[in-house]
């Protein structure tokens, strides 16, 4: 890595690390992801004699639905805080290569989210395993224990971590384009939550499926499925690819706007 890149990265790392909210928000990502997953697992019961279509990995990792919102805050604030305080002008004066600044921000945020996401996902899987086993989802009842040694579960766990990182990049891109934090977070959460809600009421099976295939959250979370894979709207890795495309498009738009616009 050349000197300039290293310095830019170091500058962004210092800015991110020295804001108190970053640490608290990343802790919140971990706590919420684990707590919601554990609560969902604790509330899951299978009455005797009924064949439940339960996906233990998906239930344990449902906290990602909430955790991603906090990840979005972290990523949005990384750029919109600079706009709201006017810091962006100093940043861009010191480092005139704007694309590089955005890339450095993306790298720092991705690294932090990957770290927090790994802890959150591992803890959620562990909690899910302990709680679901206590609720009768045992090998004796036809359920495999939730274990990272099991291929699909490993894929669901690793994919969920990547999912969080991609959500961070999507949020960073949107926030760079619109600058204001409230508007950015509104757009990001709208993109994530509206697709599944609208798809749910659309009666036409084709439209329903297409909406789920193009929605960043519905497609991206296909990575969490470990059972009943044939009924998925999109295959797990292709789904994560759709989310990656959204993130890339957002970053591209953000980067273009950043280059062309006055700070």
């Amino acid at each position, binding site marked *: 890595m050349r000197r300039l890149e290293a310095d830019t990265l170091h500058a962004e790392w210092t800015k991110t690390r020295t804001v108190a909210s970053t640490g608290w928000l990343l802790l919140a990502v971990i706590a919420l992801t684990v707590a919601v997953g554990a609560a969902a697992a604790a509330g899951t019961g299978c009455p005797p004699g009924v064949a439940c*279509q339960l996906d233990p990995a998906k239930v344990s990792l*449902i906290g990602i639905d909430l955790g991603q919102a906090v990840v*979005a805050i972290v990523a949005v604030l990384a750029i919109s805080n600079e706009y709201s305080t006017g810091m962006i002008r100093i940043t861009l004066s010191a480092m005139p290569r704007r694309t590089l600044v955005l890339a450095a921000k993306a790298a720092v945020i991705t690294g932090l989210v990957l770290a927090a996401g790994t802890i959150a996902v591992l803890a959620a899987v562990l909690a899910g395993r302990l709680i679901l086993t206590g609720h009768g989802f045992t090998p004796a009842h036809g359920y495999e224990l939730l274990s990272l040694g099991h291929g699909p579960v490993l894929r669901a766990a690793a994919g969920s971590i990547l999912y969080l990182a991609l959500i961070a990049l999507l949020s960073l891109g949107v926030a760079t384009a619109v600058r204001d934090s*409230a508007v950015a977070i*509104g757009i990001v959460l*709208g993109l994530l*939550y509206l697709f599944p*809600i609208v798809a*749910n009421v659309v009666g036409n099976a084709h439209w329903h499926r297409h909406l789920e295939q193009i929605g960043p959250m519905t497609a991206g979370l296909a990575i969490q499925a470990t059972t009943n894979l044939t009924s998925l709207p999109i295959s797990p890795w292709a789904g994560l690819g759709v989310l990656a495309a959204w993130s890339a498009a957002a970053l591209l738009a953000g980067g273009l706007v950043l280059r062309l616009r006055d700070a």
Partner: protein
Amino acid sequence: MTAGTVTPYRPDQQTGRDGFAQLLLAEWTKLRTVRGWVIGLLVAVLVMLGLGLFGAAGSSSSCQSVSGGPARSGQGCSNAPPVGPGGEAVTDSFYLVRQPLAGNGSITVRVTSLTGVIPSGNGPTLGKRPGLVPWAKAGIIIKASTQPGSAYAAMMVTADHGVRMQENFTGDTAGPPGAVTASDPRWLRLTRSGNTITGYDSADGTHWTQVGTVALAGLPPTVQAGLFAASPAYQDISQGLGGGESGTIAPSQDTAVFDHVSLSGASPASTWTGYYVGAADGPGTGGYHQAGGRFTVTGSGDIAPVVPGQAGGQDLTATTFLVGTFAGLIAVIVVATMFITAEYRRGLIRTTLAASPRRGRVLAAKAVVIGSVAFTAGLVAAAAALMLGTQLARGRVYVFPVPGLTELRMVVGTAALIAVTAVLALAVGTMLRRSAAAVTVVIVVIVLPYLLGVVSVLPAGPADWVLRLTPAAAFAVQQAIPQYPQVTALYSPGGSGGGYFPLAPWAGFAVLCGWAAVAVALALVLLRRRDV
């Protein structure tokens, strides 16, 4: 942003109602002069409308069967279910052994047995086995005509729910519990006096107890009185995680044995005739056999409201047209949060509080302004979405009819939901003073619970609690079709026949109001205590 009207400080000026009115004007000026916020509110209205129409247009054009009846097909689902006196869609399909009854009179019978046949096994090859569905019913009925959907009142024995008096599809009054057997028969009586029908029950035919009395508006002078048997479709549906449903729905049949049949009053005909009411809408199996004073009546179908989700059909409810509420809500939350957080960011809050040192009143004025604006936007968008959506869907899909008052509740409720959410966002924004965190908190407490409870993978138990406790409970105001205890269906918030909430409409709305009140109180305390 400009602080439009700032009240000059005059020591001799009374700060009474005038003061608050000026505060309102100041806040209104702040709101309307920020172009981004006005655009945000317009976007809220447009996305609400647009997504609602998308929901209406994206509905499949299959007119599927209701209650195991034949599939409705073709333009506009010409085979749509009949509509009852209350304006709701109904199943009115049963076997009737009747005589006309002119003027006042009464009908009395003794029921000695209720047996039936239900499907056995799973999958495409269903066998038959003896048994009854819980709401298999047989008894006596006084009905305006044999036309499906006409007014009626009936006394009946049921398989699992004892003696009932039911009228006009939605009315249901419980009589004595217990199943009917040869050793424990049931006597039933219906008496007509003008428009009033009274139902009685007896164990021995001499001591009668009144079960209920109902007034049927517009009952013609000559009505149909007789014995009936009906048996709703057998349903064994389980909801899988993720909203999928699987199970069996198939017609069932019941047979009741009546004796001591007596009809008092003027009857133009003196013989009983069998008739399958609503044969086109039901499985159409039934018949009767008379031997001496003993009638054996076999029937299928039901006399009850039709509800979405009963038979896994894709029929729409008007709630679909309001799906844009979520998008509109997010836009309104962003604007309402910025209405206060922008003041903190720009430092305008110091000017505002210097001009009007009574901080509670500032927050109140802001809440009134953003609440009214959000209510108006929501009202316009919800009314337009409901009206245009219904127009768009008509003729392509079957849309469950809802009474006008229910439509009004859905529109006004949606507007109120958006208004109270805006106040909640304002309060959370005041507490946190940071836009991103405040917007996220509000969206996460109102939209995400709905997503988890209705759409996502949460199992039914936790989903119900999420929709009871979180602000998302307020979406119950959008429920179009009520749950009927006398109709067996999969009443769930999600799934194809979804839209059923665990709380009653206004009770769910009250949950949101409670959260908003707590948030406003906390915001008030913090605003008063903190330096700006």
